[in-house]
């Protein structure tokens, strides 16, 4: 039976309500909050700054370090044991790859750009929310980027390709394909793509298309949040 009516009543290509704000961590060089449905991510950027210890420094290029973490009370069921898990380490790594594509780290020899992502509340789509917030934080920090990065989790459920899955859909007993995807809005290039689940190549094609389309909507939210702080100031 094709999944046409979503559990929360949304249309197939409808994203959950979103909220975004920059400058939420004053001590950081750049920061942002991104909320989609009930998933709330905060990202803070420190850098570029001198990399310590010195033996890690590279005179040819800077490095990007990403750290993704879920607060212990942010899971939708039991408490999440604090500390890095294999899952959070992998998410940190794919996040770094997703963001790296827009940075020219050769501009920052011997330096590091640290990106910290914390999830305060989760309802699926966490790594995507983290990447979306992190991209805003990098821009907020004034770091030169060739584009922003926008991310969303697309799902394939009972033959239907849906945008922005929530936990209920992610946990669907009949099985589903969970596809987090991140794109560069200007060119549509994909910098994050993962899949959990069984899908056909046709479904993959549709999922990527829907992902790109949905990310454009997320991009509009990111742009607005970044500009908001300054539109008042320069008036």
């Amino acid at each position, binding site marked *: 039976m094709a999944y046409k009516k979503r559990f929360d009543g949304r249309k197939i290509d409808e994203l959950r309500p979103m909220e975004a704000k920059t400058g939420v961590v004053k001590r950081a060089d750049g920061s942002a909050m991104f909320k989609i449905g009930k998933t709330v991510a905060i990202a803070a950027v420190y*850098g570029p700054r001198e990399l310590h210890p010195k033996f890690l420094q590279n005179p040819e290029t800077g490095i990007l370090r990403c750290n993704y973490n879920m607060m212990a009370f942010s899971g939708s069921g039991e408490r999440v044991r604090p500390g890095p898990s294999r899952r959070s380490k992998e998410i940190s790594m794919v996040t770094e790859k997703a963001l790296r594509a827009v940075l020219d780290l050769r501009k920052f020899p011997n330096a590091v750009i640290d990106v910290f992502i914390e999830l305060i509340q989760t309802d699926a789509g966490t790594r995507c929310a983290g990447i979306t917030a992190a991209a805003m934080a990098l821009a907020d920090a004034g770091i030169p980027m*060739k*584009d922003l990065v926008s991310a969303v989790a697309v799902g394939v459920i009972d033959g239907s390709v849906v945008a922005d899955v929530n936990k209920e859909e992610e946990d669907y007993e009949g099985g589903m394909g969970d596809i987090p995807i991140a794109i560069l809005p200007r060119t549509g290039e994909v910098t994050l793509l993962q899949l959990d689940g069984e899908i056909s190549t046709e479904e993959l094609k549709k999922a990527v298309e829907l992902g790109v389309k949905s990310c454009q909507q997320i991009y509009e939210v990111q742009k607005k949040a970044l500009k908001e702080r300054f539109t008042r100031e320069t008036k």
Partner: protein
Amino acid sequence: MGDLIVKDKDIVVPGEVLAVGMDFLPAGGAFREGENVVASQLGLVSISNRLIKLIPLTGKYLPKKGDTVIGKVVTMTFSNWFIDIGCQNEGVMSLRDTSEFIDKGADLSQFYNFGDVVVAKIAKVTRGAIDLTMREPGLRKLGPGKLVKVNPSKVPRIIGKEGSMITIIKDKTGCKIIVGQNGVVWIQGTPEAEMLAYQAINLIQEKAHMEGLTDEVSKFLEKAKGG
């Protein structure tokens, strides 16, 4: 031939296309990608004829040779101090670049120690390295004073044309003030005067884009003094 996508004074985000066409010349934080002129930072668009300049609204201080900077000593080796001046690399000052006569093998902490705040000049900027010097008059370790962090882009406003703004603040508060191009300001005077100078600087930061600011600051200081 070509199209301007944005207007003068628009605020744009990284990746936004500012104009299409080979006639346009990108400047500041704008770059060319094929046919497009694109923004690389969150910034303000400034257009004059075919020149599209992107003025970044945020971002750390970009070190420049000749700039006077204020920083804190964070590490030292046998022959160098490393000074945090708030940008992507720490400033390095060798024992030969100070105004003191220091023998090799001397204890560097006797001259400038961890936590000391100094005013220095950028002698050289190379990839991944910023060389500092204190071999000029006025460059020295700073005594107790109020340190204020300001947005580096507002420094020119705080100094004013030929120092006009900062001179007014110095005169009316009686404070010694040194403004580092890296966005650090050192103020020394009586506690009350320091506070006043600090408030005046915050006022400038808030209203940097407005006209008649020098008069406004002057009035503010007069009023505060008068009580």
